[in-house]
């Protein structure tokens, strides 16, 4: 059935037989260059902070900025992409059929997707997990205090299973009430029909910041029930393209680590403070050739969208309506879990 992916598989196998010294260019990257556009995944509507549409009918959000970064890395122009609106159910078939080149769409890295669906995942760029939010006047801070309480969840999600599992593990008696849609769930919680509700951490924070009268009247409990790595997904069989995506993410993290920002990138490139920055920004050769890109790709990319911290702050963090704490999504050196491979 998957004619195109098997074709790509054969192509990749053929490429693998070439001598290892010559850096083979990824067939996907070749296709993107020929086409002159990168096809990214959008959303059918919006997904707070990750994929949204602004007043000028243009896409924005964390995932969109990462797509723009990847476009700049490959094609040198942040706008040379086409964001294809996709529903959740549609995203993997759309990738397999070639409707998009890459899925950057708040997509968790799971074993099933990695193996059975024939995908490959990049380094995780975001960690979010199941958490509880409760009414502040209950005076509770952790899930243990939910004894005898009513918990609302969205029906049929992993969140339902994870929270039931967690609460029975720590021995908390509770009543679980499930709702069909997220909107129903929110309304039920706001109307005080449940003491707490379980959801994906970033969504809870967004909800607290935007849809509830007084954000301080609600607490997100400290228990982190799960943590899901969110990665970019690509078709199996094009390792070089995975390298490009991984190093796109890595370069954004290294830039943040080294203090290279959208504002100072040109200056840093002219007078690199250390050899790592010099290599990153293409003042010293080596960055481009090994990926089949230009030596200055990272510099252009950071000039266009900024480093990872800037992208995060603009879409989810301090400079956005959500004001979502970086938490796990900070650099390892600031108490988070994001890190880049070594740039040598």
């Amino acid at each position, binding site marked *: 059935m998957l004619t195109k992916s098997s074709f790509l598989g054969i192509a990749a196998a053929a490429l693998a037989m070439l001598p290892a010294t010559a850096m083979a260019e990824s067939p996907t990257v070749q296709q993107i260059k020929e086409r002159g556009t990168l096809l990214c995944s959008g959303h059918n509507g919006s997904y707070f902070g990750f994929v949204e549409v602004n007043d000028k009918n243009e896409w924005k959000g964390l995932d969109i900025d990462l797509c723009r970064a990847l476009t700049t890395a490959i094609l040198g122009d942040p706008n040379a992409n086409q964001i294809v609106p996709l529903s959740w159910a549609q995203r993997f078939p759309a990738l397999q059929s070639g409707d998009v080149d890459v899925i950057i769409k708040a997509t968790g890295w799971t074993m099933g997707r990695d193996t059975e669906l024939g995908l490959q995942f990049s380094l995780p760029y975001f960690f979010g997990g199941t958490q509880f939010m409760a009414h502040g006047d209950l005076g509770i801070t952790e899930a243990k205090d939910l004894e005898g309480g009513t918990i609302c969840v969205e029906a049929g999600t992993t969140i339902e299973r994870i929270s039931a599992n967690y609460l029975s593990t720590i021995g908390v008696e509770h009543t679980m009430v499930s709702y069909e849609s997220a909107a129903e769930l929110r309304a039920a919680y706001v109307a005080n029909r449940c003491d707490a509700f379980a959801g994906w951490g970033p969504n809870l924070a967004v909800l607290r910041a935007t*849809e*509830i009268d007084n954000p301080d009247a609600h607490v997100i409990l400290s228990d982190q029930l799960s943590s899901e790595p969110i990665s970019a997904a690509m078709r199996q069989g094009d390792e070089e393209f995975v390298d490009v995506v991984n190093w796109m993410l890595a370069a954004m993290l290294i830039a943040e680590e080294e203090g290279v920002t959208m504002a100072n990138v040109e200056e840093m490139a002219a007078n690199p403070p250390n050899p790592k920055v010099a290599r990153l920004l293409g003042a010293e050769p080596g960055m481009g050739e090994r990926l089949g890109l230009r030596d200055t790709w990272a510099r252009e990319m950071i000039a266009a969208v900024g480093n990872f911290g800037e992208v995060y702050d603009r879409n989810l963090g301090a400079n956005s309506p959500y004001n979502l704490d970086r938490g796990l999504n900070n650099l390892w050196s600031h108490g988070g879990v994001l890190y880049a491979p070594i740039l040598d």
Partner: protein
Amino acid sequence: MADISASAPPSPTTSIGATLRKRAFSSPSDTALTVIVFGILLWLAWTLFDWAILRAIWSAENVDQCGKGTGAGACWAVIDARHRLILFGLYPFDQHWRSTLAAVAIIATVILSCIPLMWTARRIVTLWIVGFATYYLLMEGSLIGLQQVTTDGWGGLSLTLFLFSSVVLLGMPMGLGLALMRRSKMPFVRGFAVVLIDFVRSLPLLVTLFTAAVVIPIILPSWLEGDKIWRVIIAFALFFACYQAEVFRGGFQAIPKGQFEAGAALGLSYWQTLGRIVLPQVFRHALPSTINMVVITFKETALVIIIGFFDIMASAKAAFGTGEWAPHYLEVYVFVALIYWAFIFSLGQYGEYLKGRMAISER
């Protein structure tokens, strides 16, 4: 109509007060019931009026006055700020006039094809070709020297209208064809129609659309794929046709067999009997259910959200899908509901008009 007043006894009092007293206040319990029911209705109407008009915030500049809770009135500021997203979806911002004109072209085509003056084969076909060509040329743009907008970028109201009208226009003749095939005396033709109709009808629309949009490109070679929007329209039209064929079948069953035989006895050909005797009656019998199908189809176009089309429902969701507008989803839904209502109500009224028109022939 006239016979009703003839059979009813002449009413002794005709003043409004007297009628009211008789109908609503004739006994204490009647009076209580009337007061309670109208009290509740008035209270509901007042609450709605108060929320939607009196306490509402109208302009996007005053968005900071919009409350997030239940205390405040409607925040129409969200419509002020986001109406272009709702109406045009992802269509490029500076090209919205094209999308507006295209929507007007489709509406004009539909209205014109509803007028009996246009009901000759040549006129109606010309009208549709001109109407849809205008829509396509304006929306796509590259053929008339405007900036090209691929179908991925189409959205909002003009996409909804386009999907709806192309599905109905393609589906209606297909449905009639399938209904005729189903009545055919040739076993192969009849069998084909029966199997196709039953097969398509036993699939949910969602699955049909998903298959057309997502699965077919995986199976077919890329030169045969075509644009996603055409695949979806064809699949949707096929779905519509299979239901509509059954509606027509009901119409055919209402025609006595003797009429076909009479036609044959008069020396009319199959097509003459069909076109001049049977079909006009079939249409009349099938009209109420047909209007029903058309209205349902208009609403079902919202399902295309699942295959990534930015129809008016999807763009409405995107409109309140950002931090600053998230609390005001209710206002956006009300706005979109009014748009749907305006179109569907007009369709229903047109159906009533047609019924009245056809009733003339039954007198």
